[in-house]
C-alpha cells in the first residue's frame, strides 16, 4: 500500500504542476461569468441558475481535466517511455496502476471540489441556501469521476496511442450518459445481431445516468433513500473493481518495446 501511495503522490504532483489546471481556472471563470449573466436575466431564479450551471460546470471541468490528464500522462509514460524505469523498480504493475488511478482521482476531486467551493461562495453572496440533495449530487459526481478515472487509466493500458485513449474515454462519457436511450433502442430491436451488439454495449458501458443527481435536485418528488445510496455505491465499487482488474491484466500482458 505504501508503494501505491508513493505512485499516487508522484502522479498527483505531476498533474497539478502541469498546465492542465489552467483549463480548470478558465472553466471556473467562464461558469461564474455565465452564471452571473444568466442570473441577471432570470428575474428571481438566480439561485437555481447558479446551482445548475455550477454543478454542470464542475462535472464538465472534471471531464476535461481527466481527458487532458490522460493525454499528458500517456505522452510521458508510454510515448516517452517514463514507465520503463518505474516498472523496473520493486513495484507490481497492479500497485503502479492503482497509484496512477488514485493520483488522477485526487486531481479530479480537487477540480470538482474547487468548482463547488466557488459555487457555494456565489450562492452565499446572493444570500441563498443550498438546495437539499446538493451535497449528495456533488458526492455522486465524485463517484462518477472515480469510475471514469478507472476506465480512462484502463484504456491507457490497452490503447496504443494517446488519441485513442482520449477518444475511448470521451465516447464512454457520451454513451454512458445515453445509457437510457441505448436501453430503449435495445427493447425496440428485433434483429439478433444488433440486439446482441446493443446488449454488449449496454452492459459494458458505465451507467453514468445513475450518478446524475444534479439535474433533479429541484425536483420536488425526488426522494433519495438508503436503497438508492446502496445501489450507487455498490455499482461504483463493483464496476471500478472489474475495470481495474481488466486494466491490471492488460498491463501485466503488455509488452514495452
Amino acid at each position, binding site marked *: 500500500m*505504501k508503494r501505491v501511495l508513493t505512485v499516487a503522490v508522484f502522479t498527483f504532483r505531476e498533474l497539478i504542476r*502541469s498546465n492542465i489546471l489552467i483549463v480548470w481556472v478558465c472553466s471556473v471563470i467562464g461558469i461564474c461569468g455565465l452564471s452571473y449573466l444568466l442570473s441577471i436575466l432570470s428575474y428571481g431564479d438566480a439561485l437555481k441558475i447558479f446551482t445548475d450551471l455550477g454543478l454542470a460546470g464542475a462535472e464538465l471541468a472534471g471531464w476535461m481535466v481527466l481527458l487532458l490528464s490522460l493525454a499528458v500522462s500517456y505522452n510521458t509514460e508510454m510515448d516517452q*517511455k*517514463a514507465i*520503463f*524505469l518505474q*516498472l523496473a523498480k*520493486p513495484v507490481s504493475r497492479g500497485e503502479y496502476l492503482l497509484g496512477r488511478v488514485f493520483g488522477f482521482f485526487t486531481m479530479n476531486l480537487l477540480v470538482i471540489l474547487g468548482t463547488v467551493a466557488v459555487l457555494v461562495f456565489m450562492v452565499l453572496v446572493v444570500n441563498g441556501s443550498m438546495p437539499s440533495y446538493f451535497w449528495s449530487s456533488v458526492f455522486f459526481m465524485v463517484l462518477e469521476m472515480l469510475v471514469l478515472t478507472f476506465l480512462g487509466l484502463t484504456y491507457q493500458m490497452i490503447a496504443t496511442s494517446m488519441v485513442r485513449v482520449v477518444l475511448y474515454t470521451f465516447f464512454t462519457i457520451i454513451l454512458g450518459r445515453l445509457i437510457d436511450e441505448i436501453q430503449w433502442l435495445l427493447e425496440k430491436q428485433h434483429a439478433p445481431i444488433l440486439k446482441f451488439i446493443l446488449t454488449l454495449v449496454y452492459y459494458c458501458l458505465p451507467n453514468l445516468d445513475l450518478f446524475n443527481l444534479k439535474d433533479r435536485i429541484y425536483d420536488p418528488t425526488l426522494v433519495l433513500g438508503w436503497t438508492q445510496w446502496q445501489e450507487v455505491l455498490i455499482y461504483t465499487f463493483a464496476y471500478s473493481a472489474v475495470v481495474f482488474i481488466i486494466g491490471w491484466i492488460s498491463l501485466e500482458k503488455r509488452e514495452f*518495446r
Partner: protein
Amino acid sequence: MLDVYENQAFGLLGLNGAGKTTILKVILGFIHPDAGTVRILNGKIADQSVRNQIGYLSELPYFSRQHTGRELLEYFGALHGLGGKTLKSRVDEVLELVRMTKPAKDKVSGYSKGMLQRIGIGQALIGKPRLLICDEPMSGLDPVGYKEMRDIFLDLKKTGTTLFLNTHILDEVERVCDRIGIIHEGVLKDVAPISKVLGSSLPVDYWIDVDKSEASKLSQLPFRESIHKNGGVQIPGLVLNETLALLNSRGAKVLGVRPLSSVVEAYFLNAIGKPIDSFASHRGES
C-alpha cells in the same frame, strides 16, 4: 546460453539493431521471450525482491518534466521501500556520487542530456543494487561526463556490484568489463573474458606518419593498405616492425605511429564475420 557472473562487469556488444536492447528488455520483463527463460539473482524478474536488488538505466532516460532531480530520486527511492531519514541521506549520497547536488533542486525540464543521464544513473543506484543494468550508459555524455561515468562503474565494481552494460563504445568495454558478449543479428556470437580478447593476435591496422618530403618512399612499401599524399601510410599490425625497419633503412623519418583500431574492435569485427581487412579500404585517404 548467456551467463553473467556475480561481482563482474559484463559488456554486451553489438551493432545498432543487433538485439542488445531487446535482450535487456527480456531480462527486465518488458518483453516476453518467444522461448527460453531468464534467471536473475537466483529468482525471476517478476519477483519484487529480485527487482529490489536491480538498478536499471535505459538509453536516454525520460522523466516527468514537472519534478526536480531530488524529487525523482526520492520517488524512486521510495519505490525501493526507503523512507524518512534513510531516504534523504541516500538521495544526498547518490546526488553527490553523480555530481548533481547543486542542480537537484531544479526541475528536470531544464536539464541537459548529460544531466538527465546522471539523474538516470542516480535513480538506478538509489536502491544500492547488487546488479546494475545499463543500456548505452554513455549516450549523450560529454568527455568529462564520459570519464565520470566510467569512474562510477569502476567504483561500483570495487564495491562488488555486478554490471551489465549494453554498449557499442569499445573503449568503455575495454576499460570496465571483465567479460564481453557479442551479439549480431539477434544471435549471440561469442562470450569471452576481456583478457582473452586483449590477448588475441588479431590483426590491428596502424598508421605511420612520415615527413611530407619523403612521402614518395611510402609507395615502395610492400604491405601498404592506403597512403596519404601528405606522408602517412596504413599498414597491417603484423608487419609493423618490418615496415618500420624498412623505412629506417631507406632513411625515411618516422614522425609517429598510432593504432587505427583496438584489439577489442578487431575481435568484435571478427566475431560478427566482418574482419578488419574488409574495412581497411574505408580508412585513411589515398
